[in-house]
């Protein structure tokens, strides 16, 4: 879902760049207060994994392929603000190193593929976790549902950006983008759930949202 240049107007790109820059700045300030020594290599390896996994396009129906985004996975593993940093590094590298996605559209790409999943997707995830029974299966089910939604929301944001830019009307962009990404989101949900269940099996203490979910058992929904 990397937006090339020439598709989204400069004002939309400027707005999404400002939002991405602002959130990443906030994430850095917060990380300065909270980041532990152990988390630095975890941020690195999460970014590396997401970069590698994003290269693996899988075919879906109708001569189209899709690829993993990973923003919700990063948010569950590292917390939403750290996830924004990781996604900005990954998408920035794809743009500057590999010419993937337009460089003027970098802000829009970080916003759609990073921030939307890491913040809105994570909020949805926490909402689902809060209402489901507190166990491993429900935790994974919530991650599957929220990661599917994160992809669909990201594609909807892309459709809105195209429409606001005057490229095509929303009634054309929204159904087309959301329709195909509803399928791609299934792949996202499978990969997110598979990776999370692996990490939960070997090192549950490294899944940031997992102790928070477990804490909620005793402390009510605001854990």
């Amino acid at each position, binding site marked *: 879902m990397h937006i090339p240049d020439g598709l989204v107007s400069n004002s939309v790109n400027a707005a999404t760049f400002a939002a991405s820059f602002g959130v990443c700045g906030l994430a850095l300030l917060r990380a300065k207060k*909270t980041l532990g020594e152990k988390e630095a290599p975890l941020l690195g*390896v999460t970014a590396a994994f997401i970069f590698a996994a994003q290269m693996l396009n899988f075919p879906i129906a109708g001569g189209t*392929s899709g690829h993993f985004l990973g923003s919700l996975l990063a948010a569950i593993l590292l917390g939403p603000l750290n996830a924004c940093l990781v996604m900005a590094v990954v998408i920035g590298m794809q743009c500057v190193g590999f010419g993937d996605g337009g460089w003027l559209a970098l802000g829009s790409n970080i916003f759609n593929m990073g921030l939307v999943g890491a913040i809105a997707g994570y909020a949805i995830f926490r909402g689902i976790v809060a209402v489901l029974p507190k166990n491993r299966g429900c935790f994974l089910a919530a991650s599957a549902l929220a990661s599917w939604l994160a992809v669909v929301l990201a594609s909807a944001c892309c459709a809105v950006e195209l429409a606001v830019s005057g490229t095509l009307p929303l009634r054309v962009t929204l159904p087309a983008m959301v329709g195909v990404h509803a399928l791609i989101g299934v792949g996202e949900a499978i990969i997110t759930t598979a990776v999370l269940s692996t990490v939960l099996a070997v090192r549950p203490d490294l899944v940031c949202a997992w102790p928070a979910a477990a804490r909620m058992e005793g402390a009510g929904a605001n854990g």
Partner: protein
Amino acid sequence: MDKKTWTFVFCALAAALALSAFVSPFASQLPDGLDKFIEEQKLQVAEGGWPHAPFPDYKVGVIKSEGLSTAVSGIIGTLAVFGLSFGLARLVFRLRRFRVPVSGDTIPIAAQSGHVPGNCGRIKGR
């Protein structure tokens, strides 16, 4: 940092490198959701992205074999992204440790900031 976490990081990085080296050459070449939409609507876009990108389209220019070219660029990208985000996080962590203490400080800087290891960016007591 404990040895067990380093082992985990090493294994996860090895998995990422294995994906970029051995699986990426077999990734689907079909256009992705957005590219397909651009094709169908016959929209005009600028090709190629950042003009100074050293590995455009995940290819290393000097390697002729397509699969190998993708694999090598994938390995380079994976390592670069690892180094960059590890370095950034490390730098941010350092900045915190070297914060100038205020006069009369009796507790360590880390404890002052309310840091709890592995707390997802939350600050204790908020």
